[in-house]
């Protein structure tokens, strides 16, 4: 069996006294799309942020393509912190896309996408911008390269944010509710970009409330509830009957909400 793209082992996360992840074990297979679903406050974002090392685990380990992220197994079983350069190297395999896009407002779309190539990797301006243009084309925004974030729609901003992450050629892409702050018409254009990424074989982890997207695009679904992973499986296993009662309850609220929108 090949090494999982991400392997989460016994992950515990506390914020002060409150434990929000109670020992998560999860493998993200190579080249597949995994969706994290679950009710609000169940810890989806926290789990994803731990995978991007934006949050440090309280205990447990995360491996990226077999290499420990942030902390390595210590002699007494207690994780030990790795040196900063090592952390950066492992982390560079990961691209992250946020719900709020988080584009830098003082740079154009092209500037946002080429920034890390220039500043971190020392790529010359011309070449960095050429490489950034390739990514902007991929998300269908080549003609908006010179626009500032304030001059772009939400869907366009999110596609630029995806291009910014892709420019560093990550092996894994993490998405935290990438369409939750978008109008329904703009959601489609972002989901389409994500679909084509998936079709290209990118390993992806997506926190999403788009159950339809989850069912159609994901090969694996993980259902999180109150900081515990209740079940993982294919969409057929998760959504098919018989269902876990908590999942049924969770899906019901979605159906209710969907029905409410139709009325």
């Amino acid at each position, binding site marked *: 069996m090949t090494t999982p793209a991400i392997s989460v082992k016994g992950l515990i996360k506390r914020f002060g006294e409150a434990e929000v992840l109670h020992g998560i074990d999860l493998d993200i297979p190579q080249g597949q799309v995994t969706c994290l679903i679950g009710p609000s406050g169940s810890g989806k974002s926290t789990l994803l942020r731990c995978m991007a090392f934006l949050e440090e685990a309280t205990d447990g380990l995360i491996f990226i393509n077999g290499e420990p992220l942030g902390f390595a197994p210590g002699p007494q079983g207690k994780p030990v912190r790795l040196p900063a350069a090592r952390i950066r190297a492992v982390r560079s395999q990961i691209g992250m896309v946020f719900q709020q896009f988080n584009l*830098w407002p003082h740079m154009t779309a092209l500037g946002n996408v080429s920034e890390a190539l220039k500043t971190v990797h020392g790529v010359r301006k011309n070449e960095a911008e050429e490489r950034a243009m390739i990514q902007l084309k991929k998300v269908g925004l080549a003609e908006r390269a010179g626009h500032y974030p304030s001059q772009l729609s939400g869907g366009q901003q999110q596609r630029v944010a995806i291009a910014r992450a892709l420019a560093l050629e990550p092996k894994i892409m993490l998405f935290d509710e990438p369409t939750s702050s978008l109008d329904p018409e703009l959601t489609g254009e972002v989901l389409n970009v994500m679909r084509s990424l998936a079709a290209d074989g990118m390993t992806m982890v997506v926190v999403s409330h788009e159950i339809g997207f989850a069912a159609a695009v994901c090969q694996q679904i993980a259902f999180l509830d109150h900081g515990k992973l209740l079940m993982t499986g294919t969409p057929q296993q998760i959504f098919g009957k018989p269902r876990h009662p908590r999942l049924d309850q969770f899906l019901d609220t979605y159906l209710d909400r969907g029905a409410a929108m139709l009325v």
Partner: protein
Amino acid sequence: MNFDTNLIVSIMPELARAFGVTLLTWGVGVIGAAILGFLVAVGRRYGSAWLGYPLWLCVEVIRGTPFLIQLFLLYYGGPFVGLSLEPIPAGLLGLTVYGAAYFSEIFRAGFEAVPPGHVEAAECVGLNRRQIVRRILIPEMTMLVLPASVNMAIILLKETAVLSIITVPELTLVISAIGSQQYAFVESLFLLALFYWGLVELSGRLGRYMEARLSKYRFATA
């Protein structure tokens, strides 16, 4: 009120020099205060508590006391602790330190107003702490603090008048001296007010122009 225009013409050269001193102390004071204030804000944000606490205390004391008294203490009290300064250097130092206390608060608020997600996005693409400050925080902060900074610069312009009490030959000192020599208080004070108001108006306009130029960099909404 009877205006003596000949008088105004005859004192022009002296006025021009005084105007220059005001502009110089203002310009150097604002730039010095902004730089020092920025360093204080960075020290308080990224430095240890050993640096942060004394800086906090200095800022609070300076903001909590009148500029006039600070300047008196610096100029007349300085020699007792071995700090004897000529009027202009003393005035510049006083204005810089006074302005820096306020600028540091403006920058502190600016740092805090940059959304944490913008910094996280930079971390995710591999920028280190220094690169994040230089490439993300400072440019974003500049836009956020521009209106407050222009305001502060205008306040400092008016505070340069206080430098007259330690005999810095700036506009207020020179014009009021002329006024009392020539028994022309009203003319001189009128002229003085006009000078300051003109400068304030001009810098306000410059500030608004800069804001308009930078508006395309404003924070985007979804």
